[in-house]
């Protein structure tokens, strides 16, 4: 049900400074990949380029003609306005956007699916609560329910477990494994290396460029991690602007 996403010499700029350089490789169909790296390694930038939110300065992302609807994206927590006066159910229902668009109504079946998604993330009966009243963990569960409703074949998570309690992390990791079991391609930006070693078969170690990409055990070696750290520390933030201006 899913397809491979390949990157070809991908260079992406953030705020007009190139943040990720010459990344080439492939997220296999049905793979479960963690993207790790030091702060400022360009992980989120890379993910945004894969989703199609940032246009590459050089190279390209080949989504194998996957429509936007086939990609489920979970933004970093800071990019979502958690104080917005929306109900939990309305938030989950946004997952149906690719089917109903701006004007279509939710069918009875889709509403039912939204309720089921809430049950699956352990928030049964929360539908009419406002998202502003939820804890960070509960809110993240809501966003995962939205992903469930989206039913995408490729799921991309940007720091899904940041500042989330242990129990929620465990429950949501179960969902990630379930998606993997269903043959979906899952890509997650993560910090906790122990978590990555335990649950993610493949890893992309990034520090402005690819340090290593492949089987998690062979990627997360002391040597590779040290190289990633050095790379990030040596980086000049004011590096020259790589030809093109940032995407308007």
């Amino acid at each position, binding site marked *: 049900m899913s397809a491979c996403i390949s990157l070809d010499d991908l260079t992406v700029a953030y705020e007009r400074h190139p943040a990720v350089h010459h990344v080439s490789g492939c997220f296999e169909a049905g793979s479960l990949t963690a993207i790790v790296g030091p702060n400022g390694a360009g992980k989120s930038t890379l993910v945004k380029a894969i*989703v199609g*939110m940032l246009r590459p300065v050089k190279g390209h992302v080949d989504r194998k003609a996957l429509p*936007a609807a086939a*990609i489920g994206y979970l933004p970093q927590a800071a990019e979502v306005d958690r104080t*917005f006066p929306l109900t939990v159910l309305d938030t989950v229902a946004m997952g149906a*956007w690719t089917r109903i668009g*701006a004007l279509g109504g939710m069918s009875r079946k889709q509403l039912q699916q939204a309720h089921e998604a809430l049950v699956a993330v352990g928030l049964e009966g929360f539908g009419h609560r406002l998202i*502003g009243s939820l804890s960070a963990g509960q809110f993240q569960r809501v966003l995962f329910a939205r992903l469930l409703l989206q039913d995408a074949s490729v799921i991309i998570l940007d720091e899904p477990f940041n500042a989330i309690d242990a129990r929620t992390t465990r429950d949501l990791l179960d969902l990630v494994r379930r998606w993997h079991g269903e043959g979906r391609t899952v890509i997650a930006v993560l910090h906790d290396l122990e978590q990555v070693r335990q649950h993610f078969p493949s890893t992309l170690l990034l520090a402005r460029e690819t340090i290593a990409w492949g089987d998690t055990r062979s990627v997360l070696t002391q040597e590779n991690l040290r190289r990633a750290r050095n790379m990030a520390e040596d980086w000049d933030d004011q590096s020259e602007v790589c030809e093109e201006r940032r995407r*308007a």
Partner: protein
Amino acid sequence: MMLYHALFEPFVEFGFMRRALVACMALGLGSGLVGVLLMLRRMSLVGDAMSHAVLPGAAIGFLVAGLSLPAMGLGGLIAGLAVALLSGLVSRFTAQREDASFASFYLTSLAAGVLIVSLRGSNIDLLHVLFGTILAIDDAALYLVGSIASITLLLLALIYRPLVLECFDPGFLRAVGGKGSLYHILFLLLVVLNLVAGFQALGTLMAVGLMMLPATVARFWARSLPGLMLVAILVAMLSGFIGLIVSYHLGVASGPSIVLTASTLYIFSLIFSPQGVVRRLFPKPHLSR
């Protein structure tokens, strides 16, 4: 009888009061809605800046056609949109933040507007442009305000879902292929349209008053988005009604009366609403034995 005399007689007796009331109701409907969304998008000050930006266009309209609302409205619409788009572009292509570029643009506009009006008009004309003349509203102006309220309702109904999504989680909307900036521009168009409607009643300086104050009041009383919108509309309409009555009986200017009524409701909410000062200082006692 007293109540009738105080509240309804002015509108029964005088056509200009009736027209003003209808204009305020229409204005409250559109501005209340737009105001809530402006507040939620954290663009309150942008609304303020845009209202000033309307001025030079209105002033050019005045220069060409005198005190005619259609001409001044059209000029204001063009100027407001131009400033909105320009400052959007400036912040997109330079390191300037959007609010800073808005401030620069609206100061320029305000100065240019006042200069243009003073080229031809008297100080009285300038006062009309700056502070509005709702009691002198004519049929053409009434139709304009009514049409703008109708357009606002229709367009908001159409773009409600993506607009909310764009505000709440812009990354998600872009990821699923939604045209976020299209909805942003349509929304800015609505803001400018409602400012043009408000500027006949309240003048360019206070047109944003019936947008932001009701929205802020609503934040004290309602939690859900539909609730916020309903309260904001009611507050805007009530402010119009009470403001007109006060200005009639006390013989004071109508625009400021309307805005001050909204301010009074704001201060009342600040003190007495469930999230207000009184509840903060004297919280309900916790359950205790």
